[in-house]
């Protein structure tokens, strides 16, 4: 049996105070934390449940963008029509995590702070240029989501800090995103490689802005500016896709493990970046 203390604060400031003093863990959906506690990988003395803080579960539109409460489960994202329309890639990435049961609990912020290199939603929110609003004893700060994870299982957050919400920027016309992952089966698996692409097109159909992020090919999910730059101005012709593929492969620093060799991951990263870019382009053309 675990010996610990559980608190469910109703304000963010209370939660920050409850986190002070060390050996505390925040609880959102619990789909990583409870598994890690059971295995003994983490042994918190206190659990700070964020779900009773107003706004921590739910999606709201603000200044044309979206604010996703840190404990919002994937199922809620999938049911939010405006969010799905504006950010289909982000939502499909979040909805790939685990089973229907896991979708009832697991959150994007939890996926981000668990800091797995293979987290499905993370390349998608990095490509989306999302920002995490972090709160702690020293106040609030806004952090680009790619700066949260620093190594497998490790984040840049101080012990008394937690992610309050994830902010997705306002969406202009002719914008689209997509996320693809490679797994050996069709469901219930961990990404061998993941690729998120977010595009904004010019009126003539040329790529005006491109953001590409890769998962499971380095100790953390990677933003790959060279891959985005490789397709600027193009209409995703074969030459542009080849440049994208090469830039994606060049950014990979994967390990070999039971799920895939380093060589395989590098090759597939290029393939998925191409395919995700094509889907994002199609979506942007129709948006």
């Amino acid at each position, binding site marked *: 049996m675990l010996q610990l*203390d559980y608190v469910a604060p109703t304000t963010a400031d209370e939660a920050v105070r409850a986190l002070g003093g060390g050996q505390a863990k925040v609880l959102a959906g619990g*789909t990583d934390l*409870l598994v890690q506690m*059971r295995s003994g990988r983490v042994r918190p003395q206190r659990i700070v449940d964020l779900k009773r803080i107003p706004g921590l579960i739910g999606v709201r539109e603000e200044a044309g963008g979206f604010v996703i409460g840190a404990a919002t489960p994937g199922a809620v994202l999938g049911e939010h029509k405006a969010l799905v329309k504006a950010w289909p890639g982000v939502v499909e990435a979040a909805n790939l995590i685990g089973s*229907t*049961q896991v979708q009832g*609990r697991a959150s994007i912020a939890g996926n981000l702070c668990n800091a797995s290199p293979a987290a499905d939603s993370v390349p998608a929110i990095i490509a989306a240029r999302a920002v995490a609003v972090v709160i702690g004893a020293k106040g609030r700060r806004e952090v680009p989501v790619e700066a949260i994870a620093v190594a497998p299982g490790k984040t840049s957050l101080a012990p008394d800090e937690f992610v309050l919400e994830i902010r997705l920027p306002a969406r202009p016309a002719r914008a689209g995103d997509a996320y693809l992952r490679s797994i050996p089966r069709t469901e219930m698996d961990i990404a061998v490689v993941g690729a998120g692409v977010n595009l904004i097109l010019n009126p003539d159909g040329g790529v005006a802005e491109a953001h590409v992020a890769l998962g499971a090919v380095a100790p953390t999910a990677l933003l790959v500016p060279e891959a985005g730059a490789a397709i600027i101005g193009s209409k995703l012709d074969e030459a542009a896709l080849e440049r994208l593929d090469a830039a994606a492969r060049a950014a990979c620093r994967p390990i070999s493990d039971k799920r895939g060799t380093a060589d395989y991951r590098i090759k597939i990263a290029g393939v998925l970046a191409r395919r995700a870019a094509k889907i994002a382009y199609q979506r942007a053309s129709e948006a």
Partner: protein
Amino acid sequence: MSKRTHISTTVNGDPVEFLSDPGVTLLDALRDELQLTGAKEGCGSGDCGACSVMLDGRLVCSCLVLAVEAEDRRIETIEGMAQGGELHPLQQKFLEHAALQCGFCTPGLLVASKALLDQNPDPTETEVRYWLAGNLCRCTGYDKIIRAVMDAAAELRQARRVA
């Protein structure tokens, strides 16, 4: 010993109260404190779905929920599925299609299937298979389970048309 917390919640429509240590899962509280042993522990890590319950109308693995989180929430378990001694059509169809052998996964599959049909009365077979991907069965394989769910969905649609 940690301090035991007093929990007030609703299970299958009834108000219930129990004491729990903070580290105890909802699954263990249901089974050990409330003697609701329909939900099963298969893996304890959210992979098998045998402990599926509804929490505030959402399908979850009760092994990945702390009992203390249930304060003021609404829980529905397999024990609430049959009404007045009458089996739910899903339960009846699982029997007719022999969609179980040892039965360990069955409560979770029934709770998960009902969650699907409550929000999607006319799912495709593919939708049923994806929805139930987090419910593992190590005996029958899945074909009979899927057929039972599809048949129950058809019967529920028919019943709705008649009503």
